[in-house]
């Protein structure tokens, strides 16, 4: 890449071209990180099945019992349908919130140093990690879908709706996995991370509309749940996944909140991730 740009100085076309090639590089670098994750899943898919146990238990034990309680789900929506969207979000959340531990692993080995010594912008690396978490979560979603269909949940199989669900899951997982990466950058050891991860998942999950509507909550918890991004992810999933699902906040707001939160977290994480090589 010539710094001089020829005797006449850089022409508009050249500037345009380097800008384009920079974007292309950025996309490739982001994809490099995500593709590596997909390859790892391909080599060792067992993990996907072991992780599927938890959503199965929630739907089959908790869901079947709670379905007998009347008036939890709003309108005429069966509780199991209501819960299915929440559990879909939950299974993605649980994968994402512990995702940062892989960054600690990579730091303790030397893989992180390899990433950081490359010319890839830190934000591309962080974004690549976020997409990887999304890919992992999509495989979880497939299992929840199959299970929900078996349990007789009225699922909307319109390809557009499925695409919308996939988008919400990737975005939501990116959001929480990036939060997880930030925590990993702060605590730096696996032991401390596990502790904090456990402490975080509970409030994020219960202070949301994943398993009951916000209208049942005491006012203070209602407020907390309204600033919880998981609430918006669940709201979007409920509207897109179920034939009888409706969104309380509107899909625009749901996706807007998730996208904005993800953007802020990626920017913060990019700063911190670069310093993890110390």
């Amino acid at each position, binding site marked *: *890449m*010539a*710094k001089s740009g020829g005797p006449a100085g850089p022409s508009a076309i050249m500037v345009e071209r380097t800008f384009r090639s920079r974007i292309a*590089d950025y996309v*490739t*670098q982001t*994809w*490099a*990180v995500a*593709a*590596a994750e997909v*390859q*790892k899943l391909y*080599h*060792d898919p067992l993990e996907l099945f072991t992780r599927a146990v938890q959503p199965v238990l929630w739907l089959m034990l908790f869901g079947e019992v709670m379905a007998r309680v009347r008036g939890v789900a709003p309108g005429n929506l069966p509780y199991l349908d209501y819960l299915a969207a929440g559990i879909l979000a939950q299974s993605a959340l649980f994968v994402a919130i512990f995702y940062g531990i892989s960054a600690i692993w990579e730091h*303790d*080995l*030397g*893989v992180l*140093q*390899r*990433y*950081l*010594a*490359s*010319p*890839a*912008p830190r934000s591309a690396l962080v974004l690549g990690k976020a997409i990887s978490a999304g890919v992992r979560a999509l495989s979880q979603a497939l299992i929840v879908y199959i299970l929900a269909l078996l349990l007789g949940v009225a699922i909307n199989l319109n390809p557009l709706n499925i695409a919308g669900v996939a988008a919400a899951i990737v975005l939501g997982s990116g959001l929480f996995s990036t939060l997880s990466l930030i925590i990993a950058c702060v605590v730096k050891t696996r032991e401390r991370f596990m502790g904090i991860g456990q402490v975080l998942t509970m409030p994020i999950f219960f202070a949301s509309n994943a398993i009951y509507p916000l209208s049942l909550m005491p006012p203070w918890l209602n407020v907390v749940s309204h600033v919880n991004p998981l609430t918006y992810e669940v709201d979007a999933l409920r509207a897109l996944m179920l034939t009888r699902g409706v969104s309380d906040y509107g899909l625009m707001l749901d996706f807007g909140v998730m996208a904005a939160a993800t953007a802020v977290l990626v920017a913060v994480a990019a700063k911190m991730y670069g310093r993890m*090589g*110390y």
Partner: protein
Amino acid sequence: MSEQNSNASPAEPAVRISELTRRFGDLTAVDRVSLSIATGEIFGLIGPNGAGKSTLIRMLTTLLSPTSGTATIAGHDIVNEPAEVRRHIGYVPQLLSADGSLTGYENMLLSARLYGVPRAERKQRIERALARMGLAEAAHHLAGHYSGGMIRRLEIAQSLLHRPEVLILDEPTVGLDPAARDTVWERVLELRSRFHRTMIVTSHLMNEVDQFCDRIALIDRGRIVAVGTPAELKARVGPGATLDDVFIRLVAAREEEQEGGYGEVRRARRAIRDHG
């Protein structure tokens, strides 16, 4: 970017370090280090544990920013142009940097993408590099199943895909058996003779440094204690001296003065782990 060494003129050293300093609280890990390394040189960094070698290398690879001073690598400044520096160097960390849950080929592909190797050339370059490192047959096996020597060769191949002007190897032969060690050095020498790459290598093994490096810097307590060809350094100590003698003569004095016991060792080891 395909033409190599676009910025540096032949007379310009590949690496020029000036007054580079890094402090961690009270500890000065690297203390006003200045060095000049010529293109095509194999330059060895030796010194006791915690001397500051890894901190120095972390600054040269832009993973750590200096407290003061700077360095220029292939014409780019590590403080002002870290991204350009990263583009022009290859780095083989001391720790395990190949991903064991990916195959050799996938590890190479990851590096090729991160370093912007053009898509059309990726496959060919990867296959050629793997073959050169004797890994063609194992290309599609998981790196987790490789031997120590194979992993090192894979890591070196990964750091060379983008044809860096300067290759930085942090303890490349640590933990390898003698045969694997020789193979790694063979490849390093071949890189120099065929492609005229500049290399910075840290090591604890005086005999391999003596045998393979053009010049050496001995670092102790963050400072450069001596620089020169192995022959020059040995001549300083006396006739018939080995590099071990040089090391012991120049470094041993302080080992005795600060005999520490467990607490000291623990502190030192932690310091090495945290910031080498």
